């Protein structure tokens, strides 16, 4: 920046700073007192509260007379205080100049909120530590939005891993696509049993059309699932048994004779209807 430019900038600042120091301090005070979403306060070098603002009261719930001179550990969850987080943060802020942290904080009424905290070391012109400035922002809403997104992601994953669809009153369909490993078959068993009891469905169509290959272990898991479904009083019809799967199962020596199996989903659906004593046919009088 040239000398002229610097002068201009300084000149402009002088115009802006045309207020008396007191008046500008007052403006700053108004800003600090009214800024929303942020709690601004100061601590002494050991972490005791030295300034309290209306914004801090709004966020944390304490009145000035309740909190002035108290150690700032009252804003932290008990377990964090016990493991020495407050001291660590002060030490870090003093050493590095500032510290940023996102974690749980506690309000006066004991409720927790997710906060972003900036702790700034305040030093005088000679570099002596005078205390700390603390700016806390309530991020609960952001945190909740993130949590909702994560939950949606989990739900979608779960649905993709083990999709369970009710195709008829009393009949659930589980169209499995992709390889079946132990973890997935375990999930399959749990979710299927849960859904069957929830919907009081006596029949589940387990469709393996989209399962490329089956090994001994997977077959064993499927047999266990079929057994467990029987224990709760329902029945599994295994559908989508393609020629290559049928060959594999026989060569592996897997005994599925206890289970009802069909090659197509349509045939399986007919079995399901007959298990429920329902008859489906064209309404031309001789159905």
């Amino acid at each position: 920046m040239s000398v002229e430019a610097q002068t201009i900038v300084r000149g402009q600042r002088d115009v802006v700073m045309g207020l008396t120091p007191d008046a500008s301090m007052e403006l700053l005070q108004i800003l600090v007192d009214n800024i929303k979403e942020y709690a601004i306060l100061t601590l002494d070098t050991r972490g005791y509260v030295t300034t309290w603002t209306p914004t801090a009261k709004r966020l944390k719930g304490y009145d000035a007379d309740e909190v002035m001179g108290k150690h700032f550990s009252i804003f932290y969850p008990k377990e964090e205080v016990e493991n020495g987080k407050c001291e660590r943060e002060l030490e870090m802020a003093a050493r590095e100049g500032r510290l940023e942290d996102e974690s749980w904080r506690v309000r006066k009424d004991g409720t927790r909120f997710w906060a972003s905290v900036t702790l700034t070391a305040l030093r005088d012109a000679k570099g002596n530590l005078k205390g700390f400035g603390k700016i806390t922002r309530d991020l609960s809403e952001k945190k909740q939005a993130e949590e909702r997104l994560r939950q949606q992601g989990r739900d979608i994953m779960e649905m993709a891993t083990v999709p369970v669809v009710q195709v008829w009153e009393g009949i659930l369909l589980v169209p499995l696509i992709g390889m079946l490993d132990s973890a997935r078959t375990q999930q399959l068993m749990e979710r299927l049993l849960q859904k069957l009891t929830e919907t009081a469905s006596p029949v589940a169509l387990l469709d393996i059309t989209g399962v490329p290959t089956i090994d001994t272990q997977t077959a064993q898991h499927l047999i266990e699932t079929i057994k467990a479904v029987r224990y709760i009083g329902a029945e599994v019809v295994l559908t989508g048994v393609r020629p290559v799967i049928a060959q594999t199962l026989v060569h592996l020596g897997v005994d599925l004779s206890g289970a009802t199996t069909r090659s197509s989903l349509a045939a399986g659906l007919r079995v399901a209807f007959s298990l429920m004593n329902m008859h489906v046919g064209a309404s031309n009088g001789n159905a």
Partner: protein
Amino acid sequence: MVSEPISVIKVRNVLLVSMPADPDDSTVAALQDRTLDAMSKHDVRGLVLDLSKVEILDSYFARTVAETAQMVGLMGGETIIAGMRPSVAITATELGVTLGKTRTAMTVENALDLAGQAERKVKARR
């Protein structure tokens, strides 16, 4: 702990036996004795074993249920297990319980329907 009593009721042509939530070993043992005793006293076609309250299944309980079903079979009755919870069913498969020809139903109501159907078939054959 006072063990919860097992209820053994005769409903139409079957015995309805309900197990408490977390039966101890003596309750489980009593299940078999009381059931077989009632089978010999009443002229019934079989047994509906209501497990809908049961939350925990151990190997002793599982074995006793399977054995009782077999014994009832020897006495000429059919056993239908009703209302087993998903978590209990998973434990049962892990324990390797085999129920043989024992039938199952989701609810006691369904079990009574099943028992009724079996009876009607027998009557129709006569």
